[in-house]
């Protein structure tokens, strides 16, 4: 192999956070000029910390950094930008009410006298967008743009500041397959122009598709750097997780029973006048999983919140075992044997400072055997929780551990433990595996299938298409608050095909969409 200059060389990076968490334990990481280098690892493996150090947002406890062969200390993002490093964060760093041009030139505004030279600003943006092959509309307000374009704005923002090294933190997490393909095309383009790209991801398929080389991190340690073409997905995931992972989950044929949930003509207009749901109709039987696919922000959150009683003001009808439940509050709905795994576990799923046992019984502490007329019985609750910790393989010392001390995956298992032991007839699972490690993901998915087979009706809302395809018996696709696609089974269905419906390119006939209500 020929000698190539190194753009980035990080040596023996150690990062210990003030609270004692060790994020990087002596990581070596180097990137060649002009390559696309993937940084892979599970959540919590230390990828983002390593990149935050490179971008000056965190200071390493020890270790050296060389940029283009020169020893450097990077104290702030400003330093990083000066050195030619740009970062596209997972949460976009854009100001929604400003225009694209204003966002791009923020901090480096061209001036004419005291004013911003708007003509020049627009020209700068147009030139950069032309040069790098990233078309963006300079005068549009960022708020109204689709996610894919927002991301392009972020990339242009970095490049216009002279970035030669571009860090992308999980850039495809919010994109549809089509948008992802476009992004990859742009990235390949950029490397031809001499830009070096660091691509953080845990989606192995994408890593295989885009990167030249890859570095694997596990538990803050460097697990090897490889030429992408010389390593298989199985080997990568083995090194990421430290054991063999079943990438395919076994799913026996569903045996659907009677209709549990029947949603008809559900509509909802948000306080600010935006219509978030329009004519949403489907039904769900016991013993089956109905997947709801869609790009985030197309009404899924509202749908879930309405079905679980967290949001009021919807029109239409929601029948649970034939009983109208629209308008009931969360307590009323839970009492009717509905359980809910919320999208945001930290905000809605758990009480962080409370111990595991309080979290596990928080939906039933008032009823026997956990509570009597006057008092509650902590001993019973703890014993119950100890069993749940074992059954759901939650990594914790004992039921008294505060949930805060657990990793994301184990926190989610606490939520899952509560929702799966509540004897529910209907489970609404909203992004049940988002942001948790591969091991826990596998566990949660297996539990979902198990529960389905024992007769639970499951509504699975997920932005992860792989998850939707893997678990769902039937699938609906949401776009702009409507159901635009219905697939009575997932055999032969591809992520690409679903992507067309998620983007609103394709749409099923109304007669086909009606089939989503099965009697």
């Amino acid at each position, binding site marked *: 192999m020929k000698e190539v200059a190194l753009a980035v060389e990080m040596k023996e990076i150690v990062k210990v956070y003030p609270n004692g968490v060790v994020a990087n334990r002596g990581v070596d990481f180097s990137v060649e000029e002009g390559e696309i280098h993937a940084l892979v690892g599970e959540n919590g493996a230390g990828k983002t910390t390593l990149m935050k150090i490179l971008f000056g947002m965190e200071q390493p406890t020890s270790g050296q950094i060389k940029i283009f062969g020169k020893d450097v200390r990077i104290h702030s993002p400003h330093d990083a930008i000066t050195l030619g490093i740009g970062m596209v964060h997972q949460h976009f*760093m854009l100001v929604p009410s400003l225009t694209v041009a204003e966002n791009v030139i923020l901090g480096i505004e061209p001036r004419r006298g005291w004013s911003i030279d708007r003509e020049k600003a627009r020209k700068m943006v147009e030139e950069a967008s032309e040069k790098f092959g990233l078309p963006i509309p300079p005068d549009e307000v960022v708020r109204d743009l689709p996610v894919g374009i927002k991301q392009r704005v972020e990339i242009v923002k970095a490049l216009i500041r002279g970035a030669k090294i571009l860090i992308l933190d999980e850039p495809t997490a919010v994109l549809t397959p089509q948008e992802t393909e476009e992004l990859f095309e742009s990235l390949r383009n950029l490397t031809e122009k001499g830009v070096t790209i660091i691509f953080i991801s845990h989606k192995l398929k994408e890593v295989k598709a885009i990167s030249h080389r890859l570095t694997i991190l596990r538990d803050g340690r460097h697990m090897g750097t490889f030429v992408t073409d010389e390593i298989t997905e199985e080997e990568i995931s083995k090194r990421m997780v430290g054991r063999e992972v079943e990438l395919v989950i076994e799913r026996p044929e569903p045996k659907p029973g009677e209709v549990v949930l029947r949603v008809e003509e559900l509509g909802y207009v948000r306080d600010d006048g935006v219509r978030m749901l329009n004519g949403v109709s489907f039904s769900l039987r016991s013993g089956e999983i109905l997947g709801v696919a869609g790009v985030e*922000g197309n009404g899924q959150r509202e749908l879930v919140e309405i079905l679980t009683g967290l949001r009021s003001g919807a029109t239409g009808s929601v029948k649970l075992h034939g009983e109208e439940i629209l308008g009931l509050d969360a307590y009323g709905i839970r009492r009717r044997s509905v359980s809910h795994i919320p999208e945001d576990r930290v905000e809605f799923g758990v009480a962080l400072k409370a111990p595991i046992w309080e979290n596990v019984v928080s939906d039933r502490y008032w009823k026997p055997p956990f509570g009597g007329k006057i008092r509650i019985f902590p001993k019973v609750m703890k014993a119950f929780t100890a069993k749940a910790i074992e059954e759901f393989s939650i990594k914790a010392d004992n039921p008294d551990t505060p949930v805060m001390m657990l990793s994301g995956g184990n926190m989610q298992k606490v939520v899952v433990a509560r929702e799966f032991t509540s004897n529910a007839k209907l489970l609404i699972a909203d992004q049940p595996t988002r942001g948790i490690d591969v091991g826990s993901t596998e566990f949660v998915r297996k539990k979902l299938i198990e529960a389905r087979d024992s007769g639970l009706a499951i509504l699975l809302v997920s932005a992860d298409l792989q998850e939707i395809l893997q678990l769902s018996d039937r699938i609906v696709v949401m776009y702009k608050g409507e159901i635009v696609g219905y697939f009575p089974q997932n055999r032969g269905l591809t992520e690409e095909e679903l992507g067309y419906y998620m983007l609103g390119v394709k749409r099923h006939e109304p007669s086909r969409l009606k089939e989503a209500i099965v009697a």
Partner: protein
Amino acid sequence: MNEIARSILSAEFVYSVIRVSTPLIFAVMGALLSEIAGVINIALEGMMLMAAFWGVIVSAFTGSAWLGMLAGLASAVLLALALAYFHLNLRTNLILAGIALNLFASGATVFLLYLISGDKGSSASIKSYVLPRVDIPLLKDIPFFGDALSGHHILTYLAFAAVVFVQYLIYRTPLGLRLRAVGENPEAAESVGISVRRVRYIALVLSGLMAGFGGVFLSMGYVSWFARDMTSGRGFIALAAQALGGKTAIGGMLGAMLFGLAEALSYTFQAIRIPSEFTNMMPFVFTLIALAVYARSVIARHRKAPSSSQPLEENTET
């Protein structure tokens, strides 16, 4: 009724609306500059009060109205710096720090007034100076308009200049862009190397300066003395007027003048012997009504908006 109509339609009435609006316009500009940067300035009231006090005292001791004004402005800016330091360096809650400064200003001015003049109520016993009025040539000779628009206090004209200045600053200059960016998404600003703390310091200092002008006007133009708690809630009314006017200086000015109108009306009613206990209440009742009507109209506007043509808001949270 005739009497009221006649007095409202007069040039004197327009003149008095402009006059009573002046301190509010300054204060609203102060409110806007801080609001836009995401650091709402609850201490406007205290800053105005401080400026009013020091304007009178320093002008009395130096014999110069202009030095008095500078001292007043400086005192308001100092208070703003204190607020900025508490909130941005010591991470105190902004609202609590603001309330503390308001109480401090109220107490300190009375205390110092007593030390200096021996009077706890007003500075009437000290001879202080006022800033001049300005007659505008040509305009002053036009009937009605001359009486309504000319002959105002110099700070009144400056207030309208401040509106133009603030509008330009916010929407045309690099600083304005940064103020708005910092107010809406501080992380985004930080990620491109803008110091959020510095920008917010600037916002609060400018806000204090505006409040200072408003306060100086009260004691060195509107009247020629300082009285305890003489701002009587104008700093808070300004926050309401700013909310009403939205994120533009022009809107803020109109909001301020609406309240100016309410205040001027209350004086007119007093003149026709409606009890002052009642008329004094009017600007505050008006604040409540105006905010309620405004909030309702915003909701109604959104309800009526056509649903299908509106794009769904993208949700970038992950």
